[in-house]
């Protein structure tokens, strides 16, 4: 059901977000083009998660604009994106029912939703566990199920908020492989991480956030070879930034 016109590029201008008196994001502006994964990196508290929630529409900006490239009103922008959270939120249902749930919400019939959900499960290697209760899965399997559920929606843009933060190395690798597969299939990946190794492995482009400001946006190769700002250099050296 992919519509021909794309919702990308995503244009962000002067984005601010305040929670009470605390300014979490200040004057953030950038453009996200279709293409390889964009990794949002930066120390804890830099505002990475808030940025993703703003882009996905879960939070409303205090100021600034988030402008999707789709002609206004032509494309249901919300239906063309999906988001994965640090801790997967799974329904108290079977693995298959979890993967089918958002498809049913989107108006697909029972059979079609189940078929697409199974495709998603196959993508993450969970097709054998389709009838199991989702919440009995291991942490890594739960996150893979959340990925399958998001992928089954066939989003044009997939936001991932620290999807591997609670996972062991093997589960992390499995999630990264799936993310890379989705990216290769043309899904635009926008992902936060504080794991530099992960950023190096996945990123085509890096956005470096620090204390609520976007300090750099650069191709991954250039960024890791020589970041332009002192803060990014310190972050790459593993120094604490506050």
């Amino acid at each position, binding site marked *: 059901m992919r519509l021909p016109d794309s919702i990308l590029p995503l244009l962000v201008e002067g984005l601010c977000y305040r929670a009470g008196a605390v300014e979490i994001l200040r004057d953030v502006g950038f453009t996200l083009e279709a293409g390889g994964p964009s990794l949002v990196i930066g120390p804890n508290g830099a505002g990475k998660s808030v940025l993703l929630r703003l882009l*996905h529409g879960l939070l409303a900006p205090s100021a600034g604009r988030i402008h999707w490239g789709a002609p206004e009103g032509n494309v249901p922008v919300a239906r063309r994106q999906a988001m994965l959270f640090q801790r997967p*939120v799974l*329904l108290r249902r079977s693995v298959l029912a979890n993967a089918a749930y958002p498809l049913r*919400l*989107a108006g697909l019939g029972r059979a079609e939703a189940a078929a697409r959900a199974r495709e998603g499960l196959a993508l993450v290697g969970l097709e054998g566990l389709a009838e199991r*209760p989702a919440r009995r899965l291991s942490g890594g399997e739960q996150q893979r199920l959340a990925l399958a559920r998001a992928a089954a929606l066939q989003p044009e843009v997939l936001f991932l908020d620290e999807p591997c933060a609670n996972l062991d190395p093997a589960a992390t690798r499995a999630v990264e492989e799936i993310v890379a597969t989705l990216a290769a299939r043309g899904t635009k990946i926008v992902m936060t991480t504080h794991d530099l190794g992960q950023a190096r492995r996945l990123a085509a482009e890096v956005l470096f956030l620090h204390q609520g400001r976007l300090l750099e946006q650069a191709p991954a190769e250039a960024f890791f070879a020589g970041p332009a700002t002192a803060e990014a250099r310190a972050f790459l050296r593993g120094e604490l930034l506050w």
Partner: protein
Amino acid sequence: MQDLATAFATALGLVATADPAVTGILLLSLRVSLTAVALAALVGLPLGALLAVARFPGRRAVLVTLNALMGLPPVVAGLLIYLLLSRAGPLGPLGLLFTPTAMVIAQAVLIAPILAALSRQVLEGLWEEYAEQLRSFGAGPWRAVPTLLWDGRFALLTVLLAGFGRAAAEVGAVMIVGGNIEGFTRVMTTAIALETSKGDLPLALALGLMLMAIVLAVNALAQGLRDAAAGSAG
């Protein structure tokens, strides 16, 4: 102690002989209270789910009122329904007063607030967990209601049992709107009250023991169903 021993013996005797009068009273008790729970659930559970997800001015006042209604005295609930159903009342022409239907209505009114308040409590925690993910899927609070009711089904079963316990145990409401008519609207609690006032304490106590056994059986059955379902759906 003598009375207690006699009561046990009487209860066993009633069960052993399957006394038709007592069996009829027992079945009516079950029928009235279970129907009342089903009726109250139709209103109370969706209302509880809605209150769990909805944010509106005055919500706190509604919650306080609802919680207070959990303490609604059965005689008051009975009296309200009596006034509605009595010959001069707005629903008088239906001729429902002193029928089992009137008892069902009174008990449903009594326990609907309990079901709504308890399910609100249970589902609010679930909503906190689900809200962001469901919004990401494009489901607003309205669409979340059926999802929460289904995903909270095991906790809600306990809520239903609390409602059933309250309905099966109350005497004031069914007494007022049912009238304790022998063979027609007499249930366990009104029979117990009657035998007590007549001074047949062992028989009253025996009926009480049987009522408790029935409530225990219903709870055990529900728990068994829950365990079986939980095993397959977690």
